[in-house]
């Protein structure tokens, strides 16, 4: 009986929400997108620090290029590990109101900042993104945290730290937290005959992977040749 009530309540919420996006959510989203929409293009130096349990890699320097509406390119001298999600992916979705429905599902205090939690559901069936949960700093009009649930890559938690370019919603640091599976290949393939995983290692829960990207030296709206994105 109790389960029935919960199911009914959930269905009512979904039907209610699918009718239209909550104005409060749209207002918050608009504030955020208005800032980012001032950016036609940018080029920024990035330091990518991948902290994944099975991966040993030193922080890598790279250059990130973006051109509105959705051109994105990362150039690194060496091998860099990046999250599947582009940094601007969420803005591409939020730019067109007809692409999604949104509603405020609560509020939270994050590092001293009052945030509203906005749930965004893309309307297109073809979208890889299933649900985006955004923590929007109400006072500054910035996304400070987002949780993206995708069809292909599971759930990704992204934290944004702003210092220099608050006015344009460009972060100085972005931290991606991704669920990773245990990495294991047969010894015969890796020719790693001396390795041995203890039972204790095998039973340890797999820690989520973190990719910390620090941005510096933004060059905004200086114009970027399209050839850069064709590489």
């Amino acid at each position: 009986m109790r389960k029935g009530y919960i199911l009914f309540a959930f269905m009512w919420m979904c039907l209610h929400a699918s009718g239209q996006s909550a104005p409060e959510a749209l207002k918050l989203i608009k504030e955020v997108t208005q800032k980012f929409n001032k950016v036609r293009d940018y080029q920024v130096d990035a330091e990518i620090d991948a902290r994944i349990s099975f991966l040993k890699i030193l922080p890598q320097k790279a250059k990130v290029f973006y051109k509105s509406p959705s051109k994105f390119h990362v150039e690194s001298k060496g091998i860099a590990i990046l999250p599947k999600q582009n940094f601007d992916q969420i803005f591409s979705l939020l730019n067109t109101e007809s692409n999604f429905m949104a509603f405020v599902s609560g509020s939270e205090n994050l590092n001293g900042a009052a945030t509203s939690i906005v749930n965004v559901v893309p309307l297109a069936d073809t979208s890889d993104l299933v649900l985006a949960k955004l923590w929007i700093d109400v006072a500054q009009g910035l996304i400070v945290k987002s949780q993206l649930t995708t069809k292909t890559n599971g759930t990704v938690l992204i934290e944004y730290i702003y210092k220099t370019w608050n006015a344009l919603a460009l972060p100085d640091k972005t931290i991606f937290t991704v669920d990773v599976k245990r990495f294991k290949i047969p010894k015969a393939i890796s020719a790693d005959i001396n390795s041995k995983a203890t039972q204790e290692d095998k039973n340890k829960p797999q820690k989520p992977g973190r990719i910390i990207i620090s941005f510096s030296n933004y060059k905004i709206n200086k114009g970027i040749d399209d050839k850069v994105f064709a590489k």
Partner: protein
Amino acid sequence: MWRNTQTELVKIFAKPRSYIGFIAIAIIVSLIHVAMYVDGLNYISFITGPLESAFNIEGKILNGNLVCFIILQTLIIQIPLLVALVTGDLISGEAAMGTIRLLMTRPLSRTSVLFSKFFAGAVYVFILLIWLALVSLGIGLLIFGPGDLIVLKSETITIIPADDTLWRFFAGLGIAFISLLVVASFSLLLSCFTDNSIGPIISTMAVIILFTIVGSMDIPLFEKIKPFLFTTHMVIWRNMFDQELDYSLIYNSIMMLFGHIILFLFIAWYSFRKKDILS
């Protein structure tokens, strides 16, 4: 001793079989280079697949450093055979041809004869490794260019910056040289006990295969034996490609390899000195 070693080197390089190693390495490396050039990215995706399911990998993954590492990893099992082909024949080959008695009539001590042969074998191994480095790393870098190296272990992936790889390759080849000296001394030891070349060569390979199988199986009984098998320490060259080097582990393995060389040479020397040469 050096003159004897030179004479032994001339004997080694006078035999056609001594060139099999160089030709085999050139053919295998060329085949891998061609295969990687044509379809390398597909092969690499097999390695990077688990990582790419969660992340994007930016940068030049297929490069000369990676191709060289793959070649070394593949060849390290076969190279002992190529070494044993020459060093397993050093004493027994002379016995089979009947020249050992002639050799013993020269005013040379048996110790000098044995160690000259070992040093000549060591020079052969060194030249073989230089050849391997030249064709795998040198030509690999020319074809594929430099880049960060992805090192695959059974439970981890290490990515080493391109400018930090060259010294690791040379250090790895240095350790491989010591490892192959173990094979050379072992086959030389077996060579002292027989009068035909095939026996020591086949026996050396059989022992290496057996030890490698024992070393790769995670069975508790074998765990106790593994530290004493020279094959366990022969693969320590791969540890030069860890991000943080475990110097004590590498040092211990090198000492174990030297210990094996000394032990095999001592037994070889002892038996050769006492050997009743009848052939």
